[in-house]
Each structure stands twice: as structure tokens, then as C-alpha cells.
């Protein structure tokens, strides 16, 4: 077994251990409500971090609008759930119907991934022509557009079908349907996803991404990242692969968004704004660009960190502390001395680049 597959299996193991530990805590009731409530969103953010890492780490493009794909997935899930619940007869509440929950979960995740993939494909087209900060700004713009669109559409469902409007129909006295998306107020959701489902999705995503990276397509994507001109001159159809990376990443983000949404009781467009995109980026960078293990760990830790600070007696300074910690972690992990030390400890040939890359120029 070579290094790469060792790494991949390490990640699967990590996820499974994560699951077993928390599942044990859950079933013995030894877990706080807060942590219990955080498990699924945490898993969702792990998926999102992996998805963004595919763009940032593997294909080497900066995306500042990943929450846009997440929100497409989330609202798609809300929509699918609404449609299914509207068309299905069910005894008792949803929480007692595991079968229906699974049905909703599976269909939602798939449809969410497809919708997000379509969006990813569309936004991928400009990606082909742009790079660097110009690309970053286009993704940012895309995220903002999505947020604003969700903010002003209203989707309802009744026996005649689904209605999309820019006015809120529920304010009409004669309205007899059910609102699925209510503009800025977002969607009310009946909770379905459970921790185990999230973990299965996470594992699936990991398998897809890691296998992709170690396949022909993944190599091509990484080659483009390292040197576009050389990749092109080696016969790689770079448009195809750039688009592929973007679309797959978007699909995964959509699936993550669906998981996130189905575990919450309500989602709003505002939740998926620029700051949310940045949050995911923070996970990726802190976990190490291109490093899937790191992304997952960073997503888990950083997602719960500010929440854990709630329990301490520092409420007022919570976000200030978070900011300081963020800066401190960046400074420490990038400190040359500490890196050199880590390099010696882990015997990694980490290039301490004092000799700037430009040395190879011309």
C-alpha cells in the first residue's frame, strides 16, 4: 500500500472513530444538548470543507462563494422535503417514521447535489476564463447573487402543485397551501437527518474525493494547478477538468447543504452569506490546503470552538476571543521555527522557502 492510500484509509478510520465515540456518548446520554445539536452541522461543515478543499487545494483556485452552493443544496432539500411530505400519507409525526425520513434524506441529498452541480457547472464556465483574484471575485459575486435571489422568492405548494412567486402568497386570506420558501424568512423544516446519515454521507464524500484525487482526472486537475501551461502542452483538455473540479465540488457542497438543512428546524438565506463562505475557507486553510484530514479536523474543532466558549464565563468577549485565536493559530502554524521543528519531528521534507520561487524564472 502506498502513502496515498494509507492516508485515505487513515481518513476513513478517523471518521469512523469520530462516529463511534459520539454515537456511544449519544446512546449513553453522556452528551450535552449543545454538543448533541452540533454533531450534524459539524459533519455538514466537514463535508463542505472537503468540498472547498477540492477547489482550493486540489484545483488551486480561490472560491469565496462556496456558501452559495451550500444554500442551493439546503433550499433544495427544504423543497424536496416539502413536496414529499405534501404527497405522502403518514401515520403520526415524522420523527416516528424512520422510513419516510430515510426517503426524504436520500432523495433530498441527491436532488440537492444535482441542483448544486448545475449551478457549479454554470459558474464554472466563467471560471474557465479567469484566474486568481478575478476568479475569487466572481465566486463571491455568485454567492451574493444566490443569497439575494433566495431573499426575494416565495415558493408554496398546494394540491395544484408548486408555485413560485415574488410575492408572499401566504398573506392572502384564501391561501390554503404550505409555504416552502418564504423569502428572507427562509424555510421551516421538519428535522430528519440523523448523525449516522451524516456520517455515511461524509464517508461517501471522502471516498469520492480521495478516489478522484488518485485517479486520472485528479492528477490532471492537480497538474493544472501546478502549471497550467505545461498541463496544456502535455495534452490535457484543461477546460474539461477545471469544470469537472468545480462541478463535483459544487455537488458535494450541495449535498452538505442538504444535510445541514435537514438537521435544522429552519434555514434562512442570510445564513449562507459571504461570512459563511469565509468560514468554510478558514477551515480549509487552517486544516492545510489540500489536506483532507486537516480540513475535517479544522472544521470540527473550529465549528464547535465559538459554541464551546458560550459555556465559559466570557460571553461578551466570545467573538473577540475567537478572532484572537484565529490570528494566533495562523501565526503559530506558519511560524518558520515551529515549522522547522515540526519538520524535524515528523521527518517531512517541508520546504522552508527562503529561496523564493522566482528563482526559477526566465
Amino acid at each position: 500500500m502506498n502513502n496515498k492510500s494509507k492516508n485515505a484509509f487513515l481518513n476513513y478510520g478517523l471518521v469512523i472513530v469520530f462516529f463511534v465515540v459520539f454515537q456511544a456518548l449519544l446512546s449513553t446520554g453522556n452528551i450535552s444538548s449543545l454538543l448533541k445539536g452540533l454533531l450534524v452541522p459539524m459533519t455538514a461543515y466537514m463535508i463542505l470543507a472537503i468540498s472547498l478543499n477540492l477547489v482550493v487545494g486540489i484545483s488551486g483556485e480561490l472560491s469565496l462563494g462556496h456558501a452559495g452552493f451550500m444554500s442551493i443544496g439546503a433550499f433544495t432539500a427544504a423543497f424536496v422535503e416539502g413536496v414529499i411530505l405534501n404527497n405522502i400519507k403518514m401515520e403520526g409525526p415524522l420523527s416516528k417514521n424512520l422510513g419516510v425520513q430515510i426517503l426524504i434524506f436520500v432523495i433530498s441529498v441527491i436532488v440537492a447535489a444535482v441542483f448544486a452541480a448545475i449551478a457549479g457547472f454554470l459558474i464554472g464556465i466563467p471560471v474557465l476564463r479567469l484566474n486568481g483574484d478575478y476568479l475569487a471575485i466572481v465566486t463571491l459575486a455568485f454567492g451574493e447573487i444566490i443569497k439575494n435571489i433566495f431573499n426575494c422568492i416565495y415558493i408554496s405548494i398546494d394540491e395544484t402543485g408548486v408555485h413560485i412567486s415574488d410575492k408572499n402568497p401566504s398573506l392572502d386570506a384564501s391561501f390554503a397551501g404550505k409555504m416552502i420558501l418564504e423569502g428572507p424568512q427562509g424555510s421551516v423544516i421538519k428535522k430528519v437527518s440523523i448523525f449516522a446519515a451524516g456520517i455515511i454521507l461524509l464517508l461517501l464524500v471522502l471516498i469520492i474525493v480521495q478516489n478522484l484525487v488518485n485517479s486520472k482526472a485528479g492528477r490532471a486537475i492537480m497538474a493544472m494547478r501546478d502549471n497550467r501551461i505545461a498541463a496544456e502542452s502535455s495534452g490535457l483538455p484543461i477546460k474539461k477538468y477545471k469544470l469537472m473540479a468545480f462541478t463535483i465540488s459544487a455537488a458535494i457542497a450541495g449535498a452538505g447543504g442538504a444535510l445541514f438543512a435537514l438537521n435544522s428546524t429552519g434555514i434562512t438565506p442570510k445564513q449562507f452569506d459571504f461570512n459563511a463562505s469565509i468560514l468554510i475557507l478558514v477551515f480549509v486553510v487552517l486544516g492545510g490546503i489540500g489536506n483532507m484530514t486537516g480540513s475535517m479536523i479544522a472544521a470540527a474543532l473550529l465549528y464547535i470552538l465559538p459554541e464551546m466558549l458560550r459555556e465559559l464565563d466570557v460571553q461578551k468577549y466570545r467573538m473577540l476571543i475567537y478572532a484572537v485565536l484565529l490570528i494566533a493559530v495562523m501565526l503559530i502554524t506558519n511560524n518558520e521555527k515551529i515549522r522547522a521543528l515540526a519538520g524535524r519531528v515528523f521527518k517531512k521534507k517541508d520546504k522552508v522557502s527562503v529561496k523564493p520561487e522566482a528563482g526559477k524564472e526566465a
Partner: protein
Amino acid sequence: MLTNLFNGIGLGSVYAIIALGYTMVYGIAKMLNFAHGDVIMVGGYASYCTMMYLGWPPAAALLFSMAICTVLGVLVERLAYKPLRNASNLAVLITAIGVSYFLQNAALLIWSSNPKVFPNIFNMPFFQGVTASAASVSADAAAADTASSGVFSVKQRGTLITIVVNLIIMAGLTLFTSKTKMGKAMRAVSEDRGAATLMGINVNRTISMTFAIGSGLAAIAGVLLCATYPNLVPTTGSMPGIKAFVAAVFGGIGSIPGAMIGGILLGVIEITARALVPTVPSDIFVFAVLIIVLLVKPSGLFGKTVREKV
């Protein structure tokens, strides 16, 4: 339509002035300083406090807030960015975001979340005098808009002042980076820090200098922003900061005139969209136009398409 154009320029000129400072740091230190918007906010508060609590005249308040922001910019650079000189761009980006959160939350603790209404400095006799004389120059624009012909409304006066300040800063920065030794050194540093060092350029000092200038400009932008849209809260700088970033990219990264034109265009698009389709969020159009423009001109309006030498 003419009114909308004028209003658009009014909004755009505010974006432009922020974008100029942004581009400065962005073009030279080669980093997306997401905390720039928050430095603007600090500038706003600094001048607000000196004017309202200490009763300083606006000019003194402006100078004071420039001093504060300059010190703040340099301090942040020294403490948070300098240790990351050799780290990846993204690491610096995340640190900048950390700084942004920090400034916002510190401001929240200091000044609370209650908005402060910024005094209308454009209404002061000095500016009235200045713009009254300028009135004759662009009388047609004014006549189309104001009922009391010939005299500028406060808002138009603000726009005019902002544009004049924009032009001065733009010219100043252009001259500075192309003509002065320090300015050229900045460009050299932006390209290859190692090689710049070998020329005898003190890279750290040059980058600090960049931040000092950028943050000083942020203070000016803060005062003008708040004077135009007088609600001052800890998050005042964030959205204009992002818009200014967009404007800078729109105009072409690192291009000083590009930042200004990009800012003004952004404002015009935003206002026009709002006028034409009043019930749809105007940002949809702003960002859609941006994407389309970048598709046609992938390096922004004034960006040089630097062909990579192979």
C-alpha cells in the same frame, strides 16, 4: 435618468475612495486585506468621537483619525501580517479576516451597537463656499437636479467633494508610485521581495509604509463615507469594504485609475438597477454585471493582460 446617474456617481464615488486605499495595499503588499473596511470604520469612530465629544473641528478630526488609522494599520501589519511574510497568500487572507472580526468586535465593546449619526460636515460654510464656486463649472448637472437652481444640495455637494478628493488621491498615488523612489520601491517589493532586498530596499519598512498610506486613506474614506451615509455602527465598513474590493477588481487589480472608475461604475450600476427594477435587490444586478464584464475582459477594465512569458 440624469438624477439617477448623479446619484449613482454619488454612491460610486464613496466606493471609489475606499477602493483606492484597497488597491494600494492590494497591489503592493499583494494581499487581500479584508480588514480594510474595518479600518475605515475605526476612522469613522475616531473622527466622530473627536468631533462630538471633544468638539474638534472636522479638519482636525480628520487629521486625528488619519493618525489613528495609520498607527492602527502599521500596528496590525507588524503584529499580524509581518510574521506571515513567507506564508501562503491564503494564510494571510485568513489572518486578515481574523483582524476584521477583531476590530468589529472590539468596536462593539467600545462603542456598542447603537448607531451614531455622523455630523454633516458637507454642510459647513467652508464646503458651501468651495462648492458654490464649483457650481458654475458644472451648472447643468446641478440645474437638472435641484429645484433651487445653481445651489447644490447637501448630497450633491458631498458627491462633488468626494470626487475631488478621489481625483486628488488618484493623482497623488499615481505620481507617488511612478515617480518617487519610495513608490518605485513599493512596486519592486510587490514583485519580488528577495530581489528588492538585494537592492538595499528595506522590505519591511516599505510594506509598513504601504499600510500606513493605505490606512491613512482609509481614514479619509471613513470620514467621507460616514458624512455621506451618516450611520456609524461597528459593521459600517464591512459591506462597503467588500464592494470596494469588487470595484478594485472590476477596474483591474493594482490599477489606480481602475479602482476609481470601477468604484464609480459600481455605484452607477447599483443605483440604475434600483431605479429600473425597484423590488429586486440591486446587488443581483451589480454582481451580474461584474461577472459579465469579467467574462469579456478577464483582467478587469484597466487591468493589464500580462501575457505569461513561456
